């Protein structure tokens, strides 16, 4: 139990049962994150990253449902765990930061209300004043000037970057063991992005929390994460240590993603774009979901490729990986 990783996700499957069909938003996803480590999850919009995150903390709402797999938090099974147990873990042991800071804070409640309640929901023995003190310190730590004054403000009085800092402060209030950051910088200016990235990273390192950093931008992952999972159409198509995956991607999709990052292209050459579009996840046919866009696709790809480990620590799902050839 003691040497169980902070989080282990195994064969997680979360489907949405909509009127127009079953959306397999997450279909056999697995990874582990150890204490103090950062796992990056990369994938295009709609690849199932957010649904994966909500599945972990048990916040998938109907018509969605976890239909299979395990979520082990420090060895404890969370799939099917009682709601009261999940509520206790949420916000205290496992915290989440959302994508759009303009939407994550309640517009009609003051910042102090929203912070104090997060402390007292998990420890009713903490008095209002003490909780307020913790909230003020947390705001100070994420670099918000004159936190005492700002505590009495409403969300609309904060800029997007400041709101995301508040959200990070709330997430870290109870010193969680795992922080899930779902594209926390996507909605922000580039300069602010860098600052937020730096703050979040620093804070996690200080507290020793494990972190899952979700993004659609590979370049963010490079300097931040230890390991990376590349998701495509609800599946992990490739995973491994960040440096190795970025230097020598095995999966054609990962190669395509790397090719579309500006800094990795030689100056003056046009960006390589992956041709085609992400397939609709409604009633997705079996087989490799990438085959409609893949240059290497052949008849074999009509079967769903299994997860294999062609090199130690390197997992991927593809019948014709880029083995041997360098990126």
């Amino acid at each position: 139990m003691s040497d169980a990783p902070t989080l282990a996700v195994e064969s997680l499957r979360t489907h949405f049962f909509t009127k127009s069909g079953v959306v397999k938003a997450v279909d056999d996803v697995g990874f582990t994150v150890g204490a103090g480590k950062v796992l990056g999850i990369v994938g295009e919009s709609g690849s199932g990253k957010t649904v994966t995150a909500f599945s972990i903390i048990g916040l998938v709402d109907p018509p969605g449902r976890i239909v299979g797999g395990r979520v082990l938090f420090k060895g404890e099974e969370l799939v099917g765990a009682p709601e009261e147990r999940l509520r206790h873990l949420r916000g205290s042991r496992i915290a989440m930061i959302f994508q759009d800071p303009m939407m994550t804070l309640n517009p009609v409640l003051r910042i102090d209300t929203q912070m104090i309640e997060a402390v007292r929901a998990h420890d009713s023995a903490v008095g209002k004043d003490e909780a307020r003190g913790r909230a003020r310190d947390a705001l100070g730590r994420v670099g918000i000037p004159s936190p005492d004054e700002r505590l009495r403000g409403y969300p609309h009085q904060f800029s997007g970057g400041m709101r995301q800092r508040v959200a990070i402060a709330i997430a870290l209030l109870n010193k969680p063991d795992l922080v899930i950051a779902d594209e926390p910088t996507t909605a922000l200016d580039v300069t602010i992005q860098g600052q937020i990235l730096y703050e979040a990273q620093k804070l996690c390192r200080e507290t020793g929390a494990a972190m899952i950093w979700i993004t659609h931008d590979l370049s963010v992952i490079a300097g931040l994460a230890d390991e990376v999972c590349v998701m495509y159409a609800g599946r992990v198509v490739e995973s491994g240590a960040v440096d190795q995956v970025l230097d020598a991607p095995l999966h054609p999709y990962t190669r395509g993603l790397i090719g579309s990052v500006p800094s990795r292209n030689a100056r003056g050459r046009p960006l390589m774009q992956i041709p085609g579009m992400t397939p609709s996840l409604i009633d997705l046919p079996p087989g490799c979901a990438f085959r409609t866009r893949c240059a290497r696709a052949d008849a074999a790809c009509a079967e769903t490729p299994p997860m294999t480990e062609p090199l130690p620590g390197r997992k991927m799902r593809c019948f014709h990986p880029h083995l041997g050839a360098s990126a």
Partner: protein
Amino acid sequence: MLVYLIRRLMQSVVVLCVMSLLVFLGVFAIGDPVQILINPLADQAEIDRATAALGLDQPLWRQYWLFLVNAARGDLGRSFVYNVPAIGLILERMPATLELAVTATFFGVILGVPLGMLAGLKPASPVGKSIMAASILGFSLPTFWVGLMLIMVFAVELGWLPSTGRGAATCSLLGLKFSLCTVDGLRHILLPALNLALFKLSLVIRLSRAGTREVVLQDYVKFARAKGLPQSRVVWLHVFKNITIPIVTVLGLELGSTIAFAVVTEWIFAWPGMGKLIIESINVLDRPVIVAYLLVIVFMFIVINLAVDVAYSVLDPRVRLSEQRA
């Protein structure tokens, strides 16, 4: 804030003037009260005398001017029928209507918000569907029919509650009579208030349900849950506070129109309110009472709208009164 209120009050004076002219012209157009008031066998001389006594021999613009001058001194004319100040007649009846309307609105909110939120949280469940079905029924059943049914069941069959009047025991406050403060008064108001509440209840259920369904999808609700807050706090603080604004808006307008048009219910339950007075006054073309009544109602709408705007600024920190269009 203060500047805003003063500006709003000045605008309402203009609104009142315009409304008084419209009302005056409208009432003038509907017929000659002398024909109704006077003995049908009276001769022309008697008719002329009566016309002059009521000031109806003057040209219209002069009548209106006299009315304005008197109104500025708080005198809205004397009832042709009762020969007492019209405004006095109305104020005497107003508490009855006010307490009926407020009680009905209270029922609508206290029952409608929780039911609507429940239906909004569980739209697909049998409970949610039944609540919705009931609210559709509440919208479509005619008020007078429901009123008669209430009387049939609770007053006639079961004999639990009285069906007419305000009850003998009323208490006075500032010279006005209220029945809410005695048990007998409460027993009397229950049926008419429920009758009047029916439409409002249905409305509040729909508003709360629609608001809840929209708000629960917002990120901030999910974030509140991700903080590990108990469900009760998520619903009663994070969701509730965000659905109050449309409810307050509609209820403000509803309260106004309930006060103005409680006529049917007042008639069925013989509730001695303004509704009965105005119907009787229209029947006999008692112009001063009609005019005074309509102006009181206009004034009330102005006050309620102002109260709703102030309520916005309390409920939603993003609203600042000074910036708002009035």
